[in-house]
């Protein structure tokens, strides 16, 4: 980052004094890019957590704009309301009409209040369920983009059955015959993420996180203070690399150096390539095979010993 400031200084200096420094500049720029690559290739979990939570990081609607040729947003759960923290609708991805949905964080303070910082109420999950039922009914593949600190915690959410809403989605996602592709694009916060995270494939951006509990809460519960977030982030194994090793994540989607927000087009292009590749594979299978494959995939996700 310091290097970049220096680069700007040199550029300005060169312009003001009409000197040609392009050769030196190119060299420094190449060096900076290399440093950045090294730095970001070995980021510790706490820094990845910061990147995943970066307010400038693209969220679901940004990706839908960059990924899809056509897009018709659909609203409401047909029961209670429309939750802006979880968006979805019809779109065209490459040649394929799909139902695409995901958690939506706000782009600024006002937007974040409307979208509850990407934390859905039960009606958000019921909207997702309704859209997935629609997709399965009309044989449209489902694409779910995950980016939430977690499901909303509140009196209203409990009254309307947050637990039931999440549970129902988990159950129904195992019944669908259409392909389901999930991708963690930012924060994968616990049950609120899993509620749209039951797929035939699980993709994850290089600097996204996926965790059973936020490292912040984990620190408070296990260490009884807020000073151990870094240890908790390490212990919980929340990075794409760790989760690929544990068999939770199928493929890591590379991000531009510095994170997806530095070059959203490139991040989206990487995601699109992977989505289309997996979708093509899944479309060669018949519906019952896809359903069974999803079951078997999750059936294998446990670590224990038999004595």
């Amino acid at each position: 980052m310091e290097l970049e400031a220096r680069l700007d200084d040199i550029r300005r200096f060169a312009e003001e004094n009409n000197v040609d420094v392009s050769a030196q500049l190119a060299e420094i720029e190449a060096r900076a890019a290399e440093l950045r690559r090294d730095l970001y290739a070995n980021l510790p979990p706490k820094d990845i957590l910061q990147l995943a939570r970066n307010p400038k990081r693209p969220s679901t609607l940004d990706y839908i704009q960059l990924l899809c040729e056509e897009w018709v947003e659909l609203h409401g759960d047909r029961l209670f309301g429309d939750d802006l923290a979880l968006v979805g609708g019809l779109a065209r991805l490459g040649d394929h009409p799909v139902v695409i949905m995901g958690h939506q964080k706000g782009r600024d303070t006002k937007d974040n209040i409307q979208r509850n910082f990407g934390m859905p109420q039960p009606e958000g999950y019921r909207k997702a369920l309704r859209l997935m039922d629609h997709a399965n009914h009309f044989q449209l593949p489902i694409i779910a983009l995950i980016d939430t600190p977690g499901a909303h915690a509140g009196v209203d959410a409990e009254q309307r059955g947050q637990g039931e809403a999440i549970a129902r989605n988990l159950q129904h996602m195992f019944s669908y015959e259409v392909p389901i592709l999930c991708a963690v694009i930012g924060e994968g916060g616990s049950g609120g993420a899993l509620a749209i995270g039951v797929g035939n494939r699980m993709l994850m951006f290089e600097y996204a996180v996926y965790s059973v509990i936020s490292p912040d809460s984990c620190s408070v519960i296990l260490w009884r203070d807020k000073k151990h977030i870094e240890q908790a982030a390490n212990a919980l194994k929340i990075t794409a690399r760790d989760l690929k090793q544990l068999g939770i994540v199928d493929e890591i989607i590379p991000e531009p150096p510095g994170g997806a927000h530095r070059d959203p087009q490139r991040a989206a292009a990487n995601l699109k390539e992977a989505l289309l590749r997996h979708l093509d594979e899944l479309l060669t299978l018949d519906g019952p095979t896809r359903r069974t494959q999803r079951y078997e995939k999750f059936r294998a996700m446990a670590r224990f010993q038999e004595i």
Partner: protein
Amino acid sequence: MDLIEWFKDRRKNGRLTKEQRQREIADGLWTKCVSCAALHYTKDFQLNWCVCPACGHHERVGAPERIPQLVDPDSWVSTDDHLLANDPLGFNDIKSYPERLAQAREKTGLSDAIVTGLATLEGRPIALGVMDFRFMGGSMGSVVGERITRLVERATAERRAAILVCASGGARMQEGVLSLVQMARTSAALQNHRSQRQLFVSVLTNPTTGGVTASFAMLGDIILAEPKATIGFAGRRVIEQTLRQKLPEGFQTSEFLLKHGFVDRIVERAQLRPTLARILRLHGVGQVQAYRPAPQASIAQDQQ
């Protein structure tokens, strides 16, 4: 001195001093109700299903006490007790995960937070899982998830009703996302069970929260709850912090869920077995014929 003699003896000697009583509570001879502070002779308290005869408070019961309350005598065969937790993340906080597991095993005599098995209930075939809150807060990791998945798969194959008695603080964070996905795995098995028109009843006891609420607890075809159990998704403290205000009285209780339409019935512990029996009976569990519609051809033949 046998118990009856001892009991007579202490009656003769009149009331106990406070110190004597404290000691006898500590020895486990007497049980003090945590709700109304009434003292009950432990044997009587246990015969009353661990429910306070004075105020009706339902004390937590472990899996070993719960199972005989529900199944037919001598019908219980436990399953998958040979599955033991690993430490897939090498998790360490103040204590290591293996240390916590060893302590929980020592304390409870159980191998993990759920006991599963096959049994009959008033002669009807069931697959029963009972969670035990004493084992690391009834948290769900790979072993709990695997035991439930295998139990439900077996129930589906053998046409047994599945019954899960829930008591859990949620996911076992020491297993990271591996614990989170147990919510999905158990739901998957229940989806298959359901698609075969097999019955699943969930019984919510104190407390049922977090990842268990957001998976199998809420997926019962029929959901029963014990009185005044804490049931919810988010923890009270988390909600209080978000709202910065005190929560309404009775929030996240069985009664609250009944009012909002998320449980079918609140059932006192003494009525749990007869209620389950009635539900199994009305679904024809164990009676294959009950579901078969009369073939049209044979009706026509009868009429000829």
